[in-house]
């Protein structure tokens, strides 16, 4: 199951790269206006949120490895953060994609050093453990479920911007 999770996340990273490859700096934080209002979740927020979750939740809270991300980013990319149209608040595409890839590589390296029994351990973080009792549950959620929900949003956000499919 460890190798499977690593494979899924590697494919997810490839998909994310394709979804943002053609985005200009102006599009990176675009919140397209539709007939009914504003689409808030832009690419910068979605990728930044995935970086935040990969680092703070997966690496720190589940794998017990040190975080590399500034805690101050919680207000920008945490679970309850609200995307804004102020592009100056957000790191650029190369920065966030670099951090995302780095986090994916750190997760893969940490998992490769474990055996399958690691997945059966209780999730170390108490709050996380209430939803995901074992490390395996938690990793399957963050690596195979959560990331794709947001990349699916990114896919539909591209359409709202008038961009093509990936």
């Amino acid at each position: 199951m460890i190798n499977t999770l690593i494979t899924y996340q590697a494919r997810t990273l490839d998909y994310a790269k394709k979804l943002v490859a053609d985005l200009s700096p102006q599009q990176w934080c675009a919140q397209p206006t539709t007939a009914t209002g504003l689409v808030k979740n832009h690419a910068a927020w979605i990728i930044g949120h995935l970086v935040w979750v990969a680092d703070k939740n997966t690496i720190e809270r589940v794998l017990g490895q040190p975080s590399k991300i500034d805690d101050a980013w919680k207000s920008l990319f945490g679970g309850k953060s609200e995307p804004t149209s102020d592009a100056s608040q957000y790191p650029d595409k190369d920065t966030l994609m670099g951090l995302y890839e780095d986090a994916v590589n750190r997760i893969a390296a940490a998992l490769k050093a474990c055996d399958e029994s690691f997945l059966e351990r209780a999730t170390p973080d108490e709050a996380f453990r209430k939803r995901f009792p074992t490390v395996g549950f938690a990793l399957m959620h963050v690596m195979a479920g959560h990331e794709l929900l947001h990349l699916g949003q990114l896919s539909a956000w591209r359409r709202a911007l008038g961009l093509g499919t990936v």
Partner: protein
Amino acid sequence: MTLLTETLLIGWNRNADYAAKLVADLSDEQMMLQPNGANHPAWIFSHMMVYHPVLVAMLRGQAFEDPKVHKFGMQSKPEADAALYGSKQSIIDAFIKGHDDVAAALKEAGEVAVEKAMPLERWKPAFPKVGSILGYLMLVHEGTHLGQISMWRRVQGLPAV
């Protein structure tokens, strides 16, 4: 049940709940809306359901057709003809039944089924065993499409779920 099976079922059941919530307040007409050519929910659900019988067949060691050629497979596109998809309620009912069928097959399948070689040649390079594609089809693939509906809702001015 194995750890893999239990883990997959948690995510799978959450997907079913989330999917039902995403369309709970939609009318039959809204299920067909394609802002800027986006995939409409009727197609997304029909597309996700293509893989339910495939998963059941793989877990039971039965033959199945390559889903690529299915009328709602990866090569299909959302069509404006609502009759192709049926009512929202019929779509949701079929989706939930498909989820239940997969869950039952997964619970029945033992380690042997999960360790079987991938029967579909096209999938073998990426997913050499039946077990290696389960999470991909059940969580990764469905999650991507449910995320599309989530954003589709925002584009319609509908609240987050």
